[in-house]
């Protein structure tokens, strides 16, 4: 089955190509490896690789695009390939970073924290500071108590946090470390003061995904900070939580909207500055904007708004049952979702929707009608977290686009039922399928067998772009290969305008790419579109 096609390949003739192909011109990986000497080197190397023949590779590559392959691909039971989900502690660190002076602390093996910090840093191009218990083999046998006693003392003394938000890695979960008891022991041993807040959450990576970890840590933080803070009267405020939302522009946009309504609010986990801090020449370690005082007082609010229902089930349940507080679920993404949210704010405040927002709505809708011809009926594949996908689907349906393949690796039945009802109710949702618990290798088969016009996803989607030639709009987390996307808002009417802009201009860019060959396709290389 395997053979070498390169018959007695000879070494490249020119093994010392000049460094400077012309004076001052330096070639890096983008150019260098496409030059002949390197191409010949690759060909020469091939004989040692034991490679399959190029014909065989091409044959299998074609087969992966077929219905036959799709059926085999969808018969998988044990294997996951290119999943669109991370593990719990990532979400825990993400939510913890939004609180004042808070140091995220991961109890377990140390490599996990290196990964979380790297991942968040690559998306936001911001420092992300977190510590670990650095547990090793002895801790696997005897438990991680000593690591936590030392770890809390060291991080408290060295980094002077106001709160340490503690979550676990799967190592600590498998060996069954008792967090509450360990923290108390650390306090008894003087690692940290008795009244120092150390909220904690069990965040095993073999349960749920990063959004589960977000929920667990948020609940842990609120439980810890609000203990004994319940007053007899409310504080007149509303709490707002955005969930695992990587668009820090959304927090700023939400606050602007609330200020326009003159509504008193607390954002529960305001990590806008944690992931987008100004460069002043001084490194500031803590940039969480939700003060511990406000977070503690959140128990006395009139109610709490959530924008990611399926990210926050435990926190919502806790707030309803333990705080006796009303919770509201809205999705202020796209036009109608924002309409509903603003209508609620208007109802709560007794004020009309501010003219500024009404005008913004008009502008967003104006833009959508201006471009509708280019988006109408376009077939879309998209993937991401449940709530993220929900907001996008709502918006696509408003635009007259058809969300055909909807892949949600960290799906759940309630989400699927709710989204299915939305799709069923729209003429543009009739060709849609929600692919719960599937991954991006499944999506590859879907896109080959039932092609679409556009893919919406995170940076990992670029491999699907390469393989299927479907243009990608990068919306989601992580986005590693484009800069500054996270600074924009996707929420509210302004956010709808951004989403719309990214979608329509990707379609137009793609049309240009398809019509750029002179005397061949450039008939339609139009100046005006």
């Amino acid at each position, binding site marked *: 089955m395997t053979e070498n096609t390169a018959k007695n390949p000879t070494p490249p003739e020119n093994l010392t190509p000049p460094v400077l192909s012309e004076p001052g011109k*330096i*070639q890096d990986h983008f150019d260098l*490896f496409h030059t002949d000497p390197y191409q010949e080197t690759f060909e020469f190397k091939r004989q040692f690789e034991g490679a399959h023949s190029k014909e065989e590779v091409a044959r299998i590559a074609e087969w992966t695009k077929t219905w036959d392959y799709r059926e085999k691909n969808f018969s998988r039971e044990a*294997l996951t390939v290119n999943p669109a989900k991370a593990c719990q502690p990532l979400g825990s660190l993400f939510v913890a970073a939004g609180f004042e002076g808070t140091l995220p602390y991961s109890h377990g093996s140390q490599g996990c924290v*290196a*990964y979380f910090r790297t991942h968040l840093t690559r998306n936001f191009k911001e420092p992300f500071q977190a510590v670990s218990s650095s547990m090793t*083999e002895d801790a696997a046998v005897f438990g991680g108590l000593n690591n936590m006693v030392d770890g809390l003392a060291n991080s408290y003394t060295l980094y002077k946090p106001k709160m340490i938000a503690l979550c676990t890695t799967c190592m600590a979960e498998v060996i069954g470390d008792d967090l509450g008891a360990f923290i108390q022991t650390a306090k008894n041993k003087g690692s940290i003061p008795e009244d120092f807040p150390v909220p904690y959450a069990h965040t095993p*990576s*073999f349960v749920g995904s990063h959004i589960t970890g977000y929920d667990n840590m948020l609940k842990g933080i609120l439980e810890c900070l609000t203990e004994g803070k319940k007053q007899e009267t409310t504080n007149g405020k509303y709490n707002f939580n955005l969930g695992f939302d990587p668009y820090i522009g959304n927090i700023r946009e939400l606050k602007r909207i609330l200020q326009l309504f003159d509504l008193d609010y607390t954002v529960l986990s305001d990590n806008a500055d944690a992931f987008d801090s100004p460069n002043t020449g001084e490194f500031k370690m803590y940039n969480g904007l939700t003060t511990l005082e406000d977070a503690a007082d959140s128990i006395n609010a009139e109610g709490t708004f959530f924008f990611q229902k399926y990210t926050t089930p435990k926190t919502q349940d806790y707030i309803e049952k333990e705080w006796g507080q009303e919770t509201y679920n809205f999705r202020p993404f796209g036009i109608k979702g924002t309409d509903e949210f603003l209508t609620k704010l208007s109802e709560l405040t007794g004020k009309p929707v501010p003219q500024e927002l009404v005008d913004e709505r008009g502008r967003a809708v104006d833009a959508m009608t201006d471009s509708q011809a280019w988006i109408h009926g376009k077939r879309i594949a998209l993937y991401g977290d449940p709530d993220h996908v929900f907001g996008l689907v709502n918006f696509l349906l408003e635009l007259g686009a058809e969300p055909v393949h909807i892949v949600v690796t960290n799906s759940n039945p309630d989400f699927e039922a709710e989204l299915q009802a939305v799709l069923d109710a729209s003429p543009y949702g009739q060709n849609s399928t929600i692919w719960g618990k599937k991954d991006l290798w499944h999506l590859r088969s879907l896109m080959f067998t039932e092609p679409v016009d556009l893919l919406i996803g995170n940076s990992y989607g670029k*491999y699907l772009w390469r393989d299927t030639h479907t243009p990608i709009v990068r919306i989601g987390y992580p986005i590693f290969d484009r800069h500054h996307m996270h600074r924009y808002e996707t929420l509210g009417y302004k956010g709808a305008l951004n989403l719309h802009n990214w979608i329509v201009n990707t379609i137009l860019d793609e049309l240009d790419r398809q019509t750029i060959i002179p005397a061949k396709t450039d008939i339609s290389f139009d100046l005006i579109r």
Partner: protein
Amino acid sequence: MTYVEENKKLIQEVLEAYPEKAAKKRSKHLNVHEESNSDCGVKSNKKSVPGVMTTRGCAYAGAKGVVWGPVKDMIHISHGPVGCGYYSWSGRRNYYIGTTGVDTFGTMQFTSDFQERDIVFGGDKKLAKLIDELEILFPLSQGTTIESECPIGLIGDDIEAVARQKAKETEKPVVPVRCEGFRGVSQSLGHHIANDTVRDWVLPKADEYRKLPEGFEPSPYDVNIIGDYNIGGDAWPSRMLLEAIGLRVISQFSGDGTFNETVMTPLAKLNLIHCYRSMNYICRHMEEKYGIGWLEYNFFGPTQIAKSLRKIAAQFDETIQENAEKVIAQYQADMDAVIAQYRPRLEGKTVMMMVGGLRPRHVIPAFEDLGMKVIGTGYEFGHGDDYKRTADYVKDGTIIYDDVSGHEFEEFAKQLNPDLIAAGIKEKYVFQKMALPFRQMHSWDYSGPYHGYHGFAVFARDMDLAINNPTWSLIENPWNK
């Protein structure tokens, strides 16, 4: 106070922020190099102190991310929960040629995505089934490695038994790698574990697995490139240089490498090792078992490239030695031109480094070729033999920091105020917020290659653009003065 004394005082000040026990531990990992010293005078390869913000990773990162991951035509399974494979997916820039998903798999993530039931009932059956599914969907894969994540070693799974059974059934190598993240003190043990799996699971069957190139005749000039991971394409200019002096590279392990190249390695006459830290184990084994010698080389910057080419050529005959001289001479003018262009812009600039395997020492001469001075350096996961080698590279008064913590690195930088910091992604934006120019030295900050003559030109350009870019001058606002 002398420079050495000043820096010693700085270390004492930096340690004052720690609780006593941690200060005592960390003090052994920090030192000021004095030229009389033969090993930098720091302890290394010890457990990180909990809670201090180490930059280190884990054994899984070392085994899957570093050593096995770049073997492009095998499928590397992140065995356990979903996170480890997700975070390390496509993160390293170890370039390769191939049709991804068909005959190569480098930028994909394969995981058994453990759920609670797998923890409770064990994951061996799932793993066996998973390998069957790989065979159906990826028939051109040349084998599988199983990188176990933390839970595997804690729940008592027998991945070795699964590997043996599946290797038999599929007639392809299946390599179990026991690289649970809690093993050892850093990614370094993961390198070692991965090397050991090459020794125990691959090389004993090398003759059986090997597909020789058509008409292959052994040659006295056959060499392996070991421990070049082809970051940004580094291994390719290195390979070309070796072939330009008349050697034949029959294997790259593991950057842009294949399984067949792995089993080609015993046929070579010499192992040329780039990253000593991560691959010395297999080189020592091959020396013992096959009598293949090994030689470390450094292809960063023209001074070291010339030195290394001569050192390598000296292992062979006069033809190779003459070729080496020719190649060195041939690139002289190009190197002079690159240095003439960039040295005036970089002369006297100071650098603090903190990287992994070999770069904290090997890159120093490349900076010096550009007139720059390294005033601090250290390893994330170095051992005593690395620091011994480092002593040959560093100057009097250089601050040496082993497994540096966030606190230490920031304080050293504040006090020493270098013109450039060269470390990793987790450090990058900390220092950029301090208005300190920064280059990532693991990923080449998305640039590269940096190896060989072609690489040095890119390196020189990148150091210049990092330090001399005008955006740094905008950070201070006009009202704050």
